[in-house]
């Protein structure tokens, strides 16, 4: 994401009415406002891709929590992104069953194909690659999620096909 874009998305310092409606729905079944903290982070992230400082402050204010408290929560959970991510996040399983079934080669293939390592976003801002604990699909290892879709029995051809229309960035092939 370019600096320009980050700054623009940061202008979202107030919650949208859709976000508020969704958070309110969660608030309905917790006894304390702070009880919906994680839900609220996820709701806002679903809208904005990630949780910027400004988004975090807006949520904290709405839930009557301090930004510090919410920060502690946001940075605890790995599915809350406190840095910008690409359009889709690749959650790549590197746990034991996938490892036994050769996920390291697949990871390398993805890295080569997209030019990113763990924690990085492709130059075209389409993908961010993140390792994830066991995805609970070990019988179909190796697996990964791209956005909401689970991809199983991964092999190199599949990776090639999946990311066929993704530009190879400069960093690739190292």
């Amino acid at each position: 994401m370019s600096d320009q874009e980050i700054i623009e998305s940061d202008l979202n310092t107030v919650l949208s009415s859709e976000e508020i409606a969704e958070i309110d729905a969660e608030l309905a079944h917790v006894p304390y406002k702070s009880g919906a903290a994680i839900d609220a982070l996820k709701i806002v992230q679903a809208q904005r891709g990630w949780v910027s400082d400004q988004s975090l402050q807006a949520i904290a204010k709405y839930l009557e929590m301090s930004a510090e408290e919410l920060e502690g929560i946001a940075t605890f959970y790995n599915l809350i992104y406190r840095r910008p991510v690409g359009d889709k996040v690749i959650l790549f399983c590197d746990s034991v069953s996938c490892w036994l079934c050769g996920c390291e080669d697949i990871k390398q293939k993805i890295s080569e194909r997209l030019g990113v390592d763990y924690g990085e976003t492709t130059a075209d801002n389409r993908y961010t690659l993140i390792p994830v604990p066991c995805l609970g699909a070990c019988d179909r290892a190796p697996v990964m999620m791209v956005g909401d879709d689970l991809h199983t029995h991964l092999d190199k051809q599949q990776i090639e096909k999946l990311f066929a229309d993704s530009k190879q960035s400069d960093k690739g092939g190292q």
Partner: protein
Amino acid sequence: MIIFVDGQEIEVKQGENVLEACLNAGLDLPYFCWHPAMGSIGSCRQCALVQYQNPEDTRGRIVMGCMTQVTDGARFSLNAQNATEFREAVVESLMLNHPHDCPVCAEGGECHLQDMTVMVGHRDRRYTGKKNTHRNQYLGPLIQHEMNRCITCYRCERYYRDYAGGSDLGAQASRDHVYFGRHQEGVLESEFSGNLVEVCPTGVFTDKPFLKHYSRKWDLQSAPSICSGCGVGCNISPGERYGKLKRVHNRYNHEVNGYFLCDRGRFGSGYINSDQRLDYSGLKGAGLKSADATFAAVHQSQAIETAAGWLQGKKVLGIGSPRASLESNYLLRELVGRSNFSSGFSDAEAAVVRSIINIQKTTVATNPTIKQMESADAILILGEDITNTAPRVALALRQALRNKSFELAEQLGLPEWQDAAVRNLAQDQLSPMVIVSAMDSRLDDVASQLISLSPAAIADFSCAVTASLQGQESDDKRVQQVANMLSAAKRPLIISGSSMLSANIVDSAACLAEALQAHKQAAQEVMLSFCVPEANSMGLGLLVNEDKRPLRLSRLAKKIDTVDAVLILENDLERRLSQSELDLIFSGKTRVISMDLLENNTLARSDLVLPVASYAESQGTLVNAESRAQRHYPVFEPAAERLCSWQWLLQLAAVMEHKKLAGIAHFDQIVEACSKSQPIFADLTAVAPDHSFRDRGLKVPRQTHRYSGRTAINADVSVHEPPQPTDCETPLAYSMEGLNRDQPASLIPYVWSPGWNSNQSLQKFQAEVNGPLKGALKHSGAGQRLIKSTQQGLEYKLKVTHPRMQKGRWQLLPMHRVHGSEELSAYTDEIAELAAQAFVALGETVAEKLGVAEGEMVVVSTADQEISLQVKVLSRVAKNCVGFSVGYDKTKSLRAGDSVALRRDKSWQPPQVIATDRGVASNGC
């Protein structure tokens, strides 16, 4: 109940945990995350020992001492190999990412981690990987952040958030990346942030002003002292080196401050090193040009002679001071004579303090210590913003609110020290606390109910609750609710104070307490407590309490013409008298002699000024809000020509050949004389041991055994070593010789014990965890309560008058600020920075009506002046009231209760930020 530890039989108390039991037995069981005031969470795993099922069990299993409750006959081992190996492994893993920079780390030499590392015997690291590192944050002028030293014990977060109620510091991230800090860089908001310095077992949070002129703990010379920041009287241990006060640490007193201070107390002593301190006596017009209004420095003896000349055989008035010691005030009174002595309180202050004293002398309610206040199960606050007027008390009230959760825990058989479990159980349930005040207070966040009323209405409200307790119905639902809350409680606390300068509020609080006590069964205990503004308000109040017609300050000003001289003791009259009254005092022919520490306008207008020692350079007794007299001792000798004010006064008396004071030459004799002067002071001699006290033949050393002693610091001036000063006035010595162990509680200058270099060594001085100091049991306790109530009660006749506010005018009410309102601490750079600008505080509707927002300027006009002040917008405020920052230079002339008009300051332009030093500060880490 007993337990066995390594075969040794240990007497334990039911309900305590094994770590506490071991520490109480004098055993060295290492720990980190446990804190005596905050209980256990079991995160560091350092306090491991082995527990055996029965005498036959030889293997046992590892348990955490802090998480294990004692049971009768339980068997443990500290020394079993698996226990020692485990504890060493804990330190080895804590050290994986820890910097190896003890020699240059600010915590070195008083580091809990360092102590524990040595204690478990860890030496050689096996880890060869890279260390994790963190970025530090700028946290304001008081606290330095150095995250790489963190061992993730969670103490800071638990202290700051759970204990002190701060919301802007917490744990972030997870696994071995946990980070303790703010969401974004910035000044820590809590007025108790300084305790992080002592709570953190390593050097993550350190005392920032101290770092600017750093010394090792072992190189600090210390003396037992009392904070002069407010009327609470927290016990402190200031440390000096090279004639500078380096820092202030907490000094444990289990009935007063326990383990914690407020930031004013910890950081507000910087004024002692200020350039604005007076070094020499100054005589106005004594220079070559005799018409000159400037001062010429004169020698001590000349100053005394001059003063004596002005006073001897003349009509003289004396003005005392609530921030000067009891001894100095007493001497001044004796010197000028009782009827010529004015307390130095403003008239309004004098009336409230008088009320408070009279109540304490007669009330049937308990006048609680801070420790007792922590046991309250319902609280009513009348008119005070306690966090700003008696900060340490507010911290105690936050703990009292947890009694509800302890009740719930007890039902489940959960001990109070199971901290996280008790908090999880209770969630946000707190004991009830109702705050009735004119506007925002810093305890609003935890109050069960907030009622915003003007001072007069607060007194009315309190009377209505009283009436309701006596069976009279009220149409105000809130009255009934408060009455119910109080009568349902086992240990209700009513707390009020002098900050609104309303004797009515204070009296109404007392009425209420009496009614409540009468209303209840005998088993229930009503507590009644008052906050007073200054360190010795109560001592001074007691001194003049028996006077039938005390000389009011305003009257003194009026009769100034009739006297030849006035002697002012440590009092900036600008804070207490109007401009016209001041003019009366200073523009006549009456000679004015002032004794003080720092430049101010009272001094500037005086004819002779005498430089006095600060609390850290002098000995004295201060009487706190609960009427506890406590002694402070000089940490170091006053520099230049400063003298303690009692010394000035004694010398004056000697030269003047004052009859009554002629026989007095030493401090202890003043104490003795004072104690005999009024029955209320009878116990003064028991406050602390006198100068003849010896422990095993020696005085108590101010210096540590590891003190580096002489250095070459003055070699540019002289290579000859000056001799160590001798101290004939106190039981302390300017020396490292002597024992610092088990002495009377009032004589502990610092804590240290072999193997325990950090402040955790305190447990070696305590009779038991959280209990009194050993020395307080063996000798006298820490301080003496002077007032013992007759319990006869008083007849209160309240005459509540409601000021009539014209349209467009507001009643001006004082808002006290931890940083900024107190006279002396405000001279400390860091405190001044935090105090920021003087302000006027408005409710939202008023701000709206005036068309101003927070930070903009408003002109406040009283009958005789106009002041432009920055606007603060309040979240709640009583009708027709506005607040002003009390004690700030710019608002010194404003008085509580003034009727003012307000208008937007049209000439005001938003300031342009040209530069800020924040970037520099944050890069410093």
